[in-house]
């Protein structure tokens, strides 16, 4: 897609349900997170790391 078309498409896209996401992978860092991680972490070994909750 030509740059002009990309810019046109980007400006036309309206983000929806952003606050409804159950999990996503960050397109910049590749880090995947999910809101239920805290519960799962409590079942795992204790670790002081504040790294994002990984899935993949």
């Amino acid at each position, binding site marked *: *897609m030509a740059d002009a078309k*990309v*810019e046109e*498409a*980007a400006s*036309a*896209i*309206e*983000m*929806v*349900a*952003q606050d*409804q*996401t*159950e*999990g*996503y*992978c*960050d*397109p910049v860092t*590749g*880090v*995947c997170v*999910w809101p*239920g*991680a805290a*519960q*799962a*972490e409590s*079942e*795992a*070994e204790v*670790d002081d*790391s504040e*790294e*994002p*909750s*990984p*899935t*993949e």
Partner: protein
Amino acid sequence: MTSTVMAKPSTRLTIDVWADVLCPWRYIGEHRLAQAIEKSPHADEIELKIHTFQLDPNAPKTVIPTLEYLSKKYGVSQAQARAQEEALGRQAKTEGFEYKADRPAGNTFDMLRLIHLANEYGVGWDYVRAMQVEVFSGHDDAFEHATLVRLGEKLGIPAQEIRDVLTTERYADAVRADHDQAVQMGANGVPFTVLGQLLGVPGAVSAEQYGAAINEAWERING
């Protein structure tokens, strides 16, 4: 004399999804999106298109256990990684599909190049699904060329074409272009779902929310 009222022809709704084979949220989200489409009165007029988005270009070329990969990538213990993966597995099970913590992980660049080949045959979506089923079901040979050839052949892609891609750099530029396009379109979460080139849904949402987005996009296009 009778008059005929011509119904306004509807415009098909295209749903574009950017994702990686290793993306757990694409795997989970796809089932929900499929449910939403199935329930939509416009299901027959919805077209799905898969685009690639490599999440970890630095992932190892050699396949390793996912828990080892996650532990190294995030600096967490394998027990932590297992707990979170098994929680996702339980969630997946309630939705009717398999998601194993003990599964292979590796670099997906070759897989993503093959998806571009599959798109030329109109089966890109199905190829991603087949690859993800292999990976998330815990099949250790999911990344092997023989497996990728077998999966592709089942979908009607000539084996020689698949091997040709795997032994060359074909579609490497297409993978990079897809990535750049998603970034330029404002993708702030993967999978990144765009409905009718109007609405963007970052990450995985519930089937109901996908359904609402489909309805809204349909109304904007055909309302």
